[in-house]
């Protein structure tokens, strides 16, 4: 039973078409990454899945009782709004105070519950957003460029956290990312989007597809090949793993 099923989805803003005839499914436990150039409809696709935009045609259906956890692309909290981390995590309600510590630990920021949201660093902020997405024990985690504003080591660490979360909770992940080399190695499946689905499959299949090369060129290909190489090597010598990712 698929968690989410997108069937022949088209989305338009006025006369402008953002997505046409997009179909995809997400199965329990898999990590699916959406890549694509700016304006290719990646965010529109995610917003259609959470129900924030109505499809012009086609439909989005969720499995029965599927819970979503959503990490938005950018969240601006007005400085006039006082908000502690623990209050933020309890929105919109129905959350036991006891589960706050658990979600923060899962997101890798165990000691922040009393802090003001406006005082957090960008990395801490993204992890608190992740904690809020995790607190409802989602079946599917949706991430929209969740590492925007983080430096290389920061985003590498963030994606490792996502893999840990998937391993520990078994939730599926559907994410948008620009960081092709990091993300593709961490994904089970990659969907290349440019208003429509250009190509999809395992990272290797997508990376060698002509449609993908036409969009991203061969420069990124090189980075991917290099990364895959490092990643394979890290499997043989586990203690090198952190080192190779962070040093890139």
């Amino acid at each position, binding site marked *: 039973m698929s968690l989410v099923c997108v069937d022949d989805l088209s989305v338009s803003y006025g006369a402008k078409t953002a997505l046409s005839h997009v179909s995809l499914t997400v199965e329990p436990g898999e990590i699916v990454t959406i890549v694509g150039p700016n304006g290719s409809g990646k965010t529109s696709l995610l917003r259609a899945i959470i129900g*924030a935009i109505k499809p012009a045609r086609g439909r989005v259906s969720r499995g029965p009782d599927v819970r979503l*956890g959503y990490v938005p692309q950018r969240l601006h909290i*007005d400085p006039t*709004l006082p908000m502690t981390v623990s209050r933020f995590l309890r929105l919109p309600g129905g959350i036991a105070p006891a589960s706050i510590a658990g979600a923060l630990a899962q997101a890798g920021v165990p000691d922040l519950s009393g802090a003001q949201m406006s005082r957090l660093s960008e990395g801490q902020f993204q992890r608190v957003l992740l904690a809020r997405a995790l607190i409802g024990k989602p079946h599917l985690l949706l991430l929209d460029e969740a590492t925007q504003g983080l430096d290389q080591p920061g985003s590498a660490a963030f994606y490792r956290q996502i893999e840990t979360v998937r391993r520990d909770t078994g939730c599926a992940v559907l994410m948008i990312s620009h960081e092709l080399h990091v993300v593709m190695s961490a994904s089970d499946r990659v969907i290349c989007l440019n208003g429509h689905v250009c190509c999809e499959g395992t990272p290797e299949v997508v990376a060698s597809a002509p449609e993908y090369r036409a969009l991203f060129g061969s420069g990124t290909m090189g980075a991917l090949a290099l990364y895959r190489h490092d990643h394979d090597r890290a499997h043989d010598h586990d203690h090198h793993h952190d080192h190779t990712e962070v040093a890139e």
Partner: protein
Amino acid sequence: MLDDFMMRATLAGVGVALAAAPLGCFVVWRRMAYFGDATAHAAILGVALSLALSISVFAGAMVIALLMALTVNLLTGRGYAMDTLLGVLAHSALAFGLVAVSFLSGIRIDLMAYLFGDILAVSRMDLAVIWGGAALVVALIGWRWSALLTATLNEDLAYASGIDPKREQLVLTLALAITVAVAIKVVGVLLIAAMLIIPAAAARPLSRTPESMALVAAGIGSLSALVGLRAAYIFDTPAGPSIVCVAAVIFAALSILGSIRSSS
């Protein structure tokens, strides 16, 4: 107890302050200050219409305020910037209202009472309407509190939690129209926005959570009403503006205190 006009005035001021506090917090957080102003200014047109039709001023003002707020909601994102749109609508509504009042030759009305409030003339009936309206506003916002907060933080976050931000916006709009209608008698249409914004803004440096900000704002608003009325009585100044002056002084004092605390 209610025979004393000062007692009735005080209760009316506190009632408006209590309703305005939580709503005012949302007005501040969502940057709707000018929206509140526009809705309030439109109410003078409602006053004129209800006098012409001999219906309750409260009902007329509320209906027109609600229509105004809904019109603004409908027109946003259609080519004009929000502040331009509000500027056009707020001032035209005020102008049309003032012109409409001038047509009411049959009845002599004191326009100043509606522009700046007439809190010392609050009757028992007015008091019942003010407290009823205030209770309705507080209940409405209390009921939707978490959903409103989530929608205020981020619309997509709200959708992902199964909350429709457009519906929550409507709840705020309705609460705003009720507050405007009950506050006309107390501070008048020109100063209603002040009762919404100043106590909430003053409460910000003292608050760590949204809930504490709403409570502190309610306290500051009530204190302003008490002190402002007393000052108006002693110095023989207009009551509504005196209340707003006290709130402004509290805001200034707390802001200075807050900046001293955060820089030390």
